[in-house]
């Protein structure tokens, strides 16, 4: 625990310097159109393997406590861990566990042709909530997020898609808000874009 505390002192999330940034003309009392919160996750692991391989699936189930989603555009979660479908043999695992621990456990449990890559330093997550989220998503790209609320399978949806001129892994959480998993080097651009895109409705990057 001491190590973790020390780590927190010296680590910097990609958008630490934007906390408290506000755009818009909305008065202080008015409801914010968009609240952006950068979420600190324990780790992000890129996982490759064959979903049909029984041993692979069993190993994942043992370590992560979930089965890997095989339906495109969905994620499975268990506790603080989620696995997002990125491709037929590729998933993004986001978890509160430390990268080294989780990676070691997975390596122990999984055999054969697989790949586990720690990409923790290269990612961050932004939670978007507020009344202008649907509009902001429509401005960001051509994916039809409205359809997620329209059809029956409206839970556990995610998609890796264009976001403005960058990319994002967009997922909808159980409470209806949206999470963007984005690349570190594009984080500033995406944050500035969000501040601009929802200026008319007020946008706060929460501290």
């Amino acid at each position, binding site marked *: 625990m001491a190590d973790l505390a020390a780590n927190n002192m010296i680590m*910097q999330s*990609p958008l630490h310097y934007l906390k408290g940034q506000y755009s818009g003309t909305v008065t202080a009392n008015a409801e914010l159109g968009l609240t952006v919160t950068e979420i600190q996750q324990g780790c992000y692991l*890129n996982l*490759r393997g064959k979903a049909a391989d029984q041993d692979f699936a069993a190993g994942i189930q043992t370590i992560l406590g979930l089965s890997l989603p095989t339906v495109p555009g969905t994620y499975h979660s268990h506790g603080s861990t989620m696995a997002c479908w990125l491709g037929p*043999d590729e998933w993004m695992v986001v978890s509160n566990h430390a990268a080294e621990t989780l990676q070691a456990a997975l390596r122990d449990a999984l055999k054969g042709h*697989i790949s586990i890559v*720690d990409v923790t330093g290269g990612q961050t997550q932004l939670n978007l909530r507020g009344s202008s989220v649907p509009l902001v998503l429509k401005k960001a790209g051509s994916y039809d997020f409205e359809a997620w609320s329209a059809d029956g399978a409206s839970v556990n949806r995610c998609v890796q898609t264009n976001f403005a001129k960058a990319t994002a892994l967009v997922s909808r959480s159980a409470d209806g808000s949206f999470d963007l998993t984005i690349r570190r080097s594009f984080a500033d651009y995406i944050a500035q874009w969000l501040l601009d895109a929802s200026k008319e409705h007020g946008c706060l990057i929460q501290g």
Partner: protein
Amino acid sequence: MSQLNRLPTSGRTDPSQIINFAFNGKSYQGIAGDTLASALLANGVNVVGRSFKYSRPRGIVGHGMEEPNGIIQLGSGAATVPNLKVTQVELYEGLEASSVNGWPNVNFDLMGIIGLFGRLMPPGFYYKTFMYPQKLWMTYEHFIRKAAGLGKTPVEADPDTYDKINQHCDVLVVGAGPAGLVAALEAGLTGARVIIADEQSEFGGSLLASNELIDGSSASHWVASVNSQLESLSNVQRLRRSTVFGYYDHNFLTILERCTDHLGLKAACGPRQCMHRVRAKQVILATGAFERPLVFAHNDIPGVMQASSVSTYVNRFGVAPGQKLVLATNNDNAYRTALDWQSAGRHVVAVVDSRSSPSGELVARVRELGIQVLDGCGVIEAKGSKRVRSALVAPLNSEGTQVVGAVQNLACDLIASSGGWSAAIHLSSHTGAKPVWDEKIVSFRPGESKQQERSAGACNGTFGLSDGLLEGSIAGAEAAHLAGFGDGVAQQPLPAVNEVVEQTQQTLFLVPHTKSTSRAPSQFVDFQLDVSAGGIELAVLEGFESVEHVKRYTALGFGTDQGKLGNINGMAILANALGQSISDTGTTIFRPSYTPTTFGAIAGRDIKDLFDPERYTAAHRWHAEQGAVFEDVGQWKRPWYFPQDNETMHQAVNRECLAVRNSVGILDASTLGKIDIQGPDAAEFITRMYTNSYLKLASGKCRYGVMLKEDGMIFDDGVCACLADNHYLMFTTTGGAAGVLAWLELWQQTEWPELQVYFTSVTDHWATATVTGPNARKVVAKVCEDIDLSADKFGFMDWRDGTVAGVAARVFRISFTGELSYEINVSANYGRHVWEKLIEAGAEFDITPYGTESMHVLRAEKGFIIVGQDTDGSMTPADMNMDWVVGKNKTFSFIGKRSLERSDSLRDNRKQLVGLKALNPNSVLPEGSQIVNDPKQAIPMAMQGHVTSSYYSANMGHSIALAVVKGGLNRMGDTVYCPAADGSVIAAEIVSSVFYDPKGVRQNG
């Protein structure tokens, strides 16, 4: 009473709200609900512009986007908007507008008085008159532009914000007239996601100016009721002031919504306009129709208007644009205008109908009111200058091709004309559907559809109201059904309409004159560009036959109105002159945009800082705090150099370069592309990609490699490290990262799927600090205790895992400077912390942060190439004097190997990488300079190659350059020359490309 043409009946306007505005510098008043056009007509403003070529005075003709004459400049300063149509500008308090045509002003037009100018401009005028001499074209163009008086774009930056949003729907309905409204309602009731867009300020389309009863009450009442039903449906999105301007493949359509334009320039809050990019499963086009004017002599005099427009001004805006009306028609429908005019309390002089003995219900109503109907006659000419004073009327033969009797002069101040209706097939045309001419309705109809769309109502050639409602209703239910909603059967009963039966119209476009078309006064077809019937006939006489050629030769339909009024008449006149049918002649192809679209809306918010993403490294803010000057490398911002005090770039770079060679420097190398490669076949796969072999590379070791495309030419380079069995880390160039990953995936997925290997980009994960220079080891030792840094334990091209500044790190002994180097990689979350600790540790050695410019100089001193700078896609490894990197004995081939054996790849006078040393040590050769053997040779000189990299090297004390020279490797010691554009010549000696530490001792440290 300033608004002399304002009627007591207000239509859809509100007389209680006075609005002040100015036109051409003069103040006027209008009322809420007015367009600029209706307000100008209410104030009796006759002349709103001057024509393009002949500079004739022109008045308002139409009431919508078809208006050819009322083209204005709105506002002033940064927010000024050119070339708007008066009929589309909603009036707001303080509006200021001026005509774009007319110089010095519309009422006293110098060009018009000179008059002669028009005679100088026959069709094909540009081609005939101003082609030669070519160098004078700029002079001509300046004169023509001034004479033409097109609008002016603002010179300041646009102060407005524009939005761009992506929409998805099951059914998109274009147009909210009667057919569109019922279609949207039927589709909406099924639960389908519906968007209905209309360019007007309110829904209703033609019904906004209609006197007809629907379901027993007024048309506007019915519109209001449908509108509120639509409003109550949460699955229906209604877009007003929204023009669908483009219909592209895969049912992708674009809509321009004018959000705040109607509020005025000052009231603007929020985005001014919004472009909707819509992907629709099904589309219903209900875009209506345009009335077609009759073409007669001097039909361009102010006071000649569209019959339907006159009715619209009377019924919708409560404005009667004149006193005494002559109505020219070839159909029943236009008789409504005579009825409307009469009921407005104005005088109808006569209805001039080209048909003999018309007998429809509307005709009867007109006759009952005692209005004179001159049947079998045509208005052959309008008289007047700035306003119609009379109409010349003459009997015509039954075909409408000849004047067959005496001409009478009817005094009037308004001529309304109607030649029937043309379906608005533009959007259907955008899809590639070829319009079909229908003799029966004298209009094109939409051709066979190539998309998931259908047309309903007038745009489908169905001009009657009840038929249009029926079509709309069917279309709505059908489209929803095809999108997966409802059973395809309309749910609502059709509204009841008492439709009058109309008699057949006459097919008449050009009304004959007593003189032949070529001798008669101009009979205008395209008002905005002054194309006359005579001009079209002349084009045919000159040999033009295709409608597309005639269009370009005469400029028919080239104006900002895109010929919405003139095109069909023009084609009909062309067909007649060619002696063929309209369907054989065909129409020109309509393309997006349907109406002019602002660039701002197309750009949206992707402007200024958000034009292109800026990618930052973890230590970016540290660099900025130190005053680094940044350079764009792809989308990355990389420190270019770190100036101190008032240093110039040159001074800073010299200082940085000396520091690296004499003590220690530090570079942020985080932007290099990094790809994690895992799998039992990883080594085999990598070996096929690079020119050298990785099969025997042991864990803990690195190797430099070059990648070729199939043509044998260098495409990327970098170091690849073996991390463990079946696990590698590949470095790519900063700019090449995405391309290399795609390249690996391409070969794995399409050519070698049997190789078991996975690739994952880890570029963003790692932050990299390169500590380099003779004191590098001492600096790293201060912050790293768990790696044995001694040269024999951790040698050049090795890597080790360890802890740096308390953070897990992977350290590589790779060098791009030729000095002892440690590339320290940590998870980017700790990137800045580790960077700052290294700076702290290096303080006693005066550790110097350096940027990309110094990096370039240092590597050039060592003769290390930069792919993309010293190579250009036509260089082999041998050309770069890097044969050593090509593995000749690999069991499996590598990409590009075979091409290296082509005779052209092997010839000995290929351009080869060499060093150049200017004879004057202080002159720096310009990069890109061409190299010749003999500077006195006559042009064209024999080019020997060019300079690829060139710098002043503070370490060497003279300038250095890398160049590619034909057969250069065998020309050491030769003098070559770089002639510059200013006539000066720099002489240089060909030397080895390695200027510094040629034995490579220092990097082994």
